[in-house]
């Protein structure tokens, strides 16, 4: 689960990572009121939306008068924000963060993620922070340092020193101390909240010599959310496609895509391979839907409904290889959905694996109209036929 910048900054504040003074606003007038309560000019007005590249997309404005604060907020809230991560349709912005501007001397980069091959959290740090960090990493890898955390000891002071003393030129001892404190606290945020990402880019050193998190990005491990009741409240369903949100509600791993072939598959790997097959057949998948291993009849029904609610869908391919998900459960879920809604598109069903006989029998004995594919290759052929019709 991604957090908004203002939510992440509140967490930073709670954990002793300094952030600029700021307030969140949902309207130009609220933005104006917020600016009045903050020191300025300058102020910064920032779109609160789950998408990177806001700066280049016009979602971050530095302004020097109260009037400009209001105008900037109005512009950001008025129309969808388009960045390289949102696609051309952009994303609607519901809130802006109004902050005091700061005078920036240097921009650093600091983040924590889990390194999968080492199975350890790692802090990534660079003295060349800012929007171009990935280019820095590709061009000058020696400027991007990593410190891996031994779970037996946690984050250690020597690791903070190894990173902070790499700064060239070296800041004052006071500034170094602030940066070192922020490193320890970022680790605490990461571990305490089960983060999959905690990123500060840029971490700036102000002209006054203070370290400050100018941006804040936190993602929470969805698998750990159930042990963080307080964080669940930070979810912003408006950030999701309505069908994605509905799928999330039923614990379905669904991503809406642009095509016209709906797909319901069990297992992420088989789902991806099924999408590949659809594409190779010359069609476009309308979605990725992994109903998962432990899917209940209810989840299958909801998943099927969600696929059919997508008006782009012209045919549906169900590709199930039963393992922990049993074919009979799948069949009953499909029938339960079919009872409640009309199915106007061709349905291609390919069932294999655990309890396959029972699943096939249930479908066969129902009133449901569907085409049977016995293999992936056959499924691909049928899809091609639907597309070319």
């Amino acid at each position, binding site marked *: 689960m991604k957090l908004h910048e203002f939510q992440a900054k509140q967490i930073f504040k709670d954990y002793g990572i300094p952030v600029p003074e700021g307030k969140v606003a949902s309207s130009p007038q609220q933005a104006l009121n917020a600016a009045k309560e903050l020191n300025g000019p300058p102020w910064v007005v920032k779109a609160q939306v789950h998408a990177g590249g806001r700066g280049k997309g016009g979602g971050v404005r530095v302004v020097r008068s109260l009037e400009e604060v209001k105008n900037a907020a109005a512009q950001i809230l008025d129309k969808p924000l388009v960045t390289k991560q949102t696609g051309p349709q952009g994303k609607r912005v519901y809130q802006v963060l109004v902050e005091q501007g700061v005078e920036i001397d240097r921009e650093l*980069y600091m*983040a*924590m*993620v*889990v*390194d*999968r*091959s080492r*199975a*350890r*959290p*790692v802090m*990534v740090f660079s003295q060349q922070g800012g929007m171009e*960090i*990935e280019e820095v*990493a590709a061009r000058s890898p020696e400027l*991007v340092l*990593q410190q891996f955390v*031994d*779970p*037996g000891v946690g984050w250690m002071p020597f690791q903070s020193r190894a990173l902070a003393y790499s700064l060239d030129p070296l800041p004052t001892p006071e500034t170094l101390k602030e940066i070192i404190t922020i490193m320890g606290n970022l680790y605490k945020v990461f*571990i305490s909240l*089960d983060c*999959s*990402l905690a*990123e500060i*880019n840029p971490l700036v050193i102000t002209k006054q010599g203070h370290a400050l998190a100018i941006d804040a*990005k936190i*993602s929470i*491990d969805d*698998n*750990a959310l*159930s*042990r963080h009741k307080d964080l669940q409240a930070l979810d912003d369903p408006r950030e999701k496609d309505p069908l994605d949100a509905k799928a999330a509600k039923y614990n379905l791993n669904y991503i809406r*895509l642009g095509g016209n072939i709906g797909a319901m598959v069990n*297992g*992420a*790997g*088989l789902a*991806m*391979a099924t*999408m*590949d097959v659809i*594409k*190779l057949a010359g069609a476009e998948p309308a979605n*990725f839907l992994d109903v*998962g*291993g*432990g899917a209940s009849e209810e989840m299958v029904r909801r998943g099927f409904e969600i696929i059919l609610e997508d008006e782009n869908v012209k045919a549906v391919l169900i590709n*199930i*290889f039963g*393992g*922990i998900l049993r074919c009979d459960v799948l069949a009953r879920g499909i029938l339960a959905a079919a009872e409640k809604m009309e199915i106007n598109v061709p349905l291609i069903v390919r069932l*294999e694996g*655990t309890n*396959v006989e029972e699943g096939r029998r249930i479908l066969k004995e129902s009133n449901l109209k569907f085409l049977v594919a016995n*293999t*992936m*290759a056959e499924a*691909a052929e049928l899809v091609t036929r639907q597309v070319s019709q």
Partner: protein
Amino acid sequence: MSILVDEKTRVVVQGITGREGTFHTTQMLAYGTAVAAGVTPGKKGQKVEGVPVFNTVHEAVKNEGVNASCIFVPPLFAADAIMESASEGVEVIVCITEGIPVLDMVKVASFLQNTKAVLIGPNCPGIICPGKTKVGIMPGHIHRPGHVGVISRSGTLTYEVVDQLTRAGFGQSTCIGIGGDPIIGTTFIDHLARFKEDPETQGVVLIGEIGGSAEEEAALYIQNEFRKPVIGFIAGQTAPPGKRMGHAGAIISGGKGKAEDKVQALESAGITVVRNLGRLGETALEIMGKG
């Protein structure tokens, strides 16, 4: 021969009294697996399909001499269950559970360093030696005893591959789902090394997917160390870019993880990569000869 488990393997099912645990215990027993014990704290004395239930893995080891475990406990308790088996000397631990928090797996990985346990999974279908034993949830009937080893990050995709292999006339020596999570107990390389030493295994099918760098590392290993024929498949060739872990994720991965990179890594290691999954069976016939 087979790797890791065989007909003598005695399995304890952790979480045996749960819905999935009970269902797959029945399935495993039906396949011929020696499910010797189950564990659910507080349920000692019960029986599930005739299998005695204990409160702890310690009791299961002591009373039934189990040496492998199959875990069905819920995600927030699964890391603890893995460590319990490992601390009791269980040698092969198969964790079926999906959705274990990543930081829990960081702890598990650290813990296992000090034990002799081999962890398969989590978020995996398990391991099967066709005709001998099945420790996991894969549908047994699609498998045939034979000479192809299968290693896969995916669950159901593995069934698809095995099904095609069987239909093409290729039986399997051992099939292992290593799991689809970011942190897993064993990698492609761990099992390739075992297949290398297993005289019964004459070729290997390796099923990868986008994300991480396990396939690239496996390619390097195969190029340098592995002489049996290998067929590869990478799922997600047409997938849109997945969740990005900020800049940090991209920096850490060094740009690896895309399907095309993996396909190239495998091909430049001399491995035949199947691009259309529907054609895997045919390709096996071309590469490995008549099954």
